[in-house]
């Protein structure tokens, strides 16, 4: 009984994935006309005035127009093209010290004023069960301002045929190189978000993101075996220029085992490599379980950072607000208060930010009107901070919010969501090949694979897309059936080297789920290639007959 409608699209390994769909399909020409700012201000003022008159001590209004386009392909066919649009207004208030929220898709002054009054009524009802009144950290009103994702090529203006042709060309490249089957998808998002609050802000933002994942599957009918290799692309907070890969966007993997990308993506080249590598995986050596030094590429490490640092330092989890679903966190307040909890080794420096260009989390302001910023979570291995919203800042002694409030739709209530959480590059010059030279018995892991972690973020097990043996300082043969299993604190304390800034790049999660009813958000995680010593590797192969 999820609140959202979901669209089934073809996804990795021949299955289906559910992609959230917000509303109505639209004609292409309608996409380019945003709602007039004057009209949005009029609606917002109607809500702010109605809420204040009804007794709210605070009110914010979010007027959203969400445009998505999804293209799904399989082998030589386009399976689906979907344009969606959703427009409406969400009003959040504080009355009698409690929150109330109401949303409407009716874009009239009367309807939004009504929603504001409903929100106040809900707040009053909730106040009876409220343990302590909501306390908002102050934020200065910024008046009327606007912000837009920096991009050169608007995905909304690129012809559908050009996009479909790119995906089909990638599929063909994969099939020609050895894949038995290919799927390639393109997700494109534009969020036109207008925020107004009784603090005196009227913030108009235009956010753009895209992602082109694919899967190559190789089948050996004689043995009945099959293997897959997913694309090594990352989703980006950019325009369609992301697909105009230039030589400076290409990164050589350790030992030259494959091509990687930073800031631009050649999906056809990657698909060709994937077709070949999926076939190669069919006969690759099955890993010997044991302790290995792991050399983790940013295309892989981003998800590890996301799961065992990003989620673990969400303050709402730490405080118990997600206990029934996503869980709580081992990184409890006492560990932060002592300023001596050794989350990782001395070289582990992890920062939160919503300011890095090209990242999925990059915005001018969050969904509470707080300007984007950058702050430390872990400095020299010590836990020093969390991710907070306005109503949480006072709990950790902050004078202002970190700007971590986000709602995935005008009809969803905003709550604490993860900013970009990234591992800083090493300060000493170190290339990937130099890092590998010091490894006697190791495994080089690239790409996101299977990932699972407990509800307090201690015990995790992660796989990848590509695994290569490292023996006596050299990257060697491909390995199969690899997953590493560890404990978050042990893992980060085994971090022994990080490559320098030249190797730093971002991966990201496009559909990160949290909350009840579930909401999705998109977030990036940067790192350079990083080494972890003596990690437990298991062999994941199983027989069922």
């Amino acid at each position, binding site marked *: *009984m999820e609140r959202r409608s979901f669209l089934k699209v073809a996804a990795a390994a021949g299955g289906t994935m559910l992609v959230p769909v917000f509303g109505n399909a639209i004609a292409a020409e309608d996409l380019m006309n945003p709602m007039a700012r004057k009209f949005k201000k009029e609606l917002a003022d109607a809500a702010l005035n109605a809420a204040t008159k009804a007794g709210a001590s605070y009110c914010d209004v979010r007027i959203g127009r969400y445009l998505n386009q999804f293209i799904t392909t399989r082998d030589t066919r*386009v399976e689906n093209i979907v344009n969606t649009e959703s427009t409406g207004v969400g009003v959040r208030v504080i009355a009698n010290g409690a929150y109330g929220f109401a949303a409407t898709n009716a874009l009239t002054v009367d309807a939004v004023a009504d929603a504001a009054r409903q929100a106040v009524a809900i707040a009053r009802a909730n106040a009876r069960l409220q343990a302590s009144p909501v306390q908002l950290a102050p934020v200065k009103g910024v008046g009327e301002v606007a912000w837009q994702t920096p991009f050169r090529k608007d995905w909304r203006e690129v012809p559908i045929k050009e996009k479909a042709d790119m995906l089909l060309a990638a599929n063909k490249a994969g099939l020609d190189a050895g894949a038995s089957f290919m799927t390639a998808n393109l997700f494109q998002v534009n969020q036109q978000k207008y925020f107004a609050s009784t603090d005196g802000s009227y913030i108009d933002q235009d956010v753009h993101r895209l992602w082109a994942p694919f899967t190559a599957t190789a089948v050996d009918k004689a043995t009945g075996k*099959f293997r897959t290799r997913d694309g090594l692309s990352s989703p980006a907070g950019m325009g369609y220029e992301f697909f105009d890969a230039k030589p400076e966007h290409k990164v050589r993997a350790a030992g030259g085992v494959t091509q990687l990308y930073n800031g631009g993506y050649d999906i056809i080249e990657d698909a060709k490599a994937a077709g070949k590598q999926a076939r190669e995986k069919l006969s690759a050596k099955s890993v010997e379980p044991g302790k290995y030094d792991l050399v983790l590429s940013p295309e892989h490490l981003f998800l590890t950072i996301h799961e065992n640092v990003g989620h673990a330092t969400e303050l709402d989890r730490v405080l118990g607000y997600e206990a029934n679903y996503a869980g709580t966190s081992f990184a409890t307040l006492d560990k932060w208060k002592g300023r001596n909890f050794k989350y990782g080794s001395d070289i582990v420096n992890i920062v939160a930010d919503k300011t890095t260009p090209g990242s999925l989390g990059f915005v001018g302001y969050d969904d509470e009107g707080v300007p984007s910023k950058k702050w430390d979570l872990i400095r020299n291995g010590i836990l020093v901070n969390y991710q907070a919203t306005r109503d949480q800042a006072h709990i950790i002694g902050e004078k202002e919010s970190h700007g971590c409030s986000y709602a995935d739709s005008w009809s969803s209530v905003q709550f604490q969501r993860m900013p970009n959480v990234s591992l800083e590059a090493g300060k000493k010059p170190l290339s990937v090949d130099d890092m590998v030279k010091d490894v006697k018995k190791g495994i080089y892991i690239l790409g996101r694979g299977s990932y699972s972690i407990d*509800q307090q973020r201690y*015990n995790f097990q992660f796989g990848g897309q590509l695994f290569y043996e490292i023996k006596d300082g050299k990257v060697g043969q491909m390995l199969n059936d690899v997953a590493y299993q560890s404990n978050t604190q042990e893992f980060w304390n085994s971090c022994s080297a990080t490559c320098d800034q030249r190797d730093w790049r971002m991966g990201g999660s496009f559909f990160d789920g949290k909350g009840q009813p579930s909401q999705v958000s998109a977030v990036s995680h940067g790192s350079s290639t990083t080494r972890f010593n003596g990690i437990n590797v298991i062999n994941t192969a199983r027989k069922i007959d």
Partner: protein
Amino acid sequence: MKLLSKDEAKSICDKVMAMSKADECRVNLSGSRKGNVRYANNSVSTAGLIEDTTLVVSVAFGKKQGSATCNQFDAKSLEAAVRRAEEIARLAPENPEFMPAVGKQDFKASNTFNRNAEAFNPEYRADVAFASIAAAKKAGLQAAGFFNDSIGFDCIANSNGVFGFQELGGLNFTVTTRTDDGRGSGWVNRAAYDPKAFDPRAASEIAIEKALRSVDAKALEPGRYTVVMEPAATNDLLNFMFSAFDARSADEGRSFLSKKGGANRLGDKLFDEQVNVWTDPWDANAPVLPWDQGTMQARARRDLIKGGVITSLDYNRYWAQKQKKEATPPAGNIIMAGGSKSTEELIASTKKGILVTRTWYIRMVDPQSVALTGLTRDGTFYIENGKIKHPIKNFRFNDSPVSMLNNIDELGRPVLIGDTDARKLMIPAMKVRDFNFTSLSDAV
């Protein structure tokens, strides 16, 4: 807007189809009123009510197809949705695997709506939260829970004369109760069509008992153990496996149901003979719509596994035509036969084993064998000589539901599990041999 009656829905479908200039037109119309209340730390955090009605219109010119949706129902909005679908269809490349709309179907109504569900309102939801929080407070615990309810309708129609309309309703409830010091945690979930069949206080008491009993968990060595899995603990594991019942993937060699040399494993015995699984839209305990919303095909009762043997796979219309098989849409519900024993009785007949309340963060490790990994959570106990001896620390497991259903010792009484996925599951508690726990977790 208020929920539509059958006549009102039919009138909209007819209007839309009359507007279409395409070769064919399919209409899905659905409406719902969904309410929820969420609480944590014994205090309500959010509450919401969402009313919406959505029209999806799909049209085709030859093998070129397009879809559009809207949620406004004046003539202009309906016309715009039809024209947009037609525009996308004209832009779309031809799909060689396109299947034309199905012909008239015979839909036998199923009982997906209980009139008592009309009682859902903000007061009812507040009472649920209050009852749950009060019980937790009395036991000195912190409750975090989520209750959501929905009533609505589903309507389908196409230009070949298909028409179906049916009302839907139901509720889902989960609560986690934790000790203040975070050393104990218990969980429960409930799903029902009839609010009269749901008692939030009684449900919460189960989570409370588990939280209180789970304090001071001992570490047990990872390894293979006999497990008593509560129905909610196997729900996600089974969903992974039944999602791979697609005949095409099996025939193409990329499924656990693929055979060496290219065939699929239809007719093979893969599981213990106690395993009997079927789908039945008219099941009294887990009814679902008598049609598949995507293809508009009528659903039928169908055995999936009989005596441990795979008896049918999902054939989509294109693949069925190509393979000269009968097209079978994916199951709307999964019913697994069990016995008459309660979970307590399964525990009573266990010499040494582990009781698992809930599993969490389950991910595919290897689709070749449906090897999955995940963790236990919110109530894991050691069983000795038919009794719960003491709580144990949570485990990570690496195992396959295929192996699990091959190692069945005993099955309990089936219960309805909330539809977290598109499917409803009615599954028993299971006692399973040699379940593979691979490491310990410190999480409570």
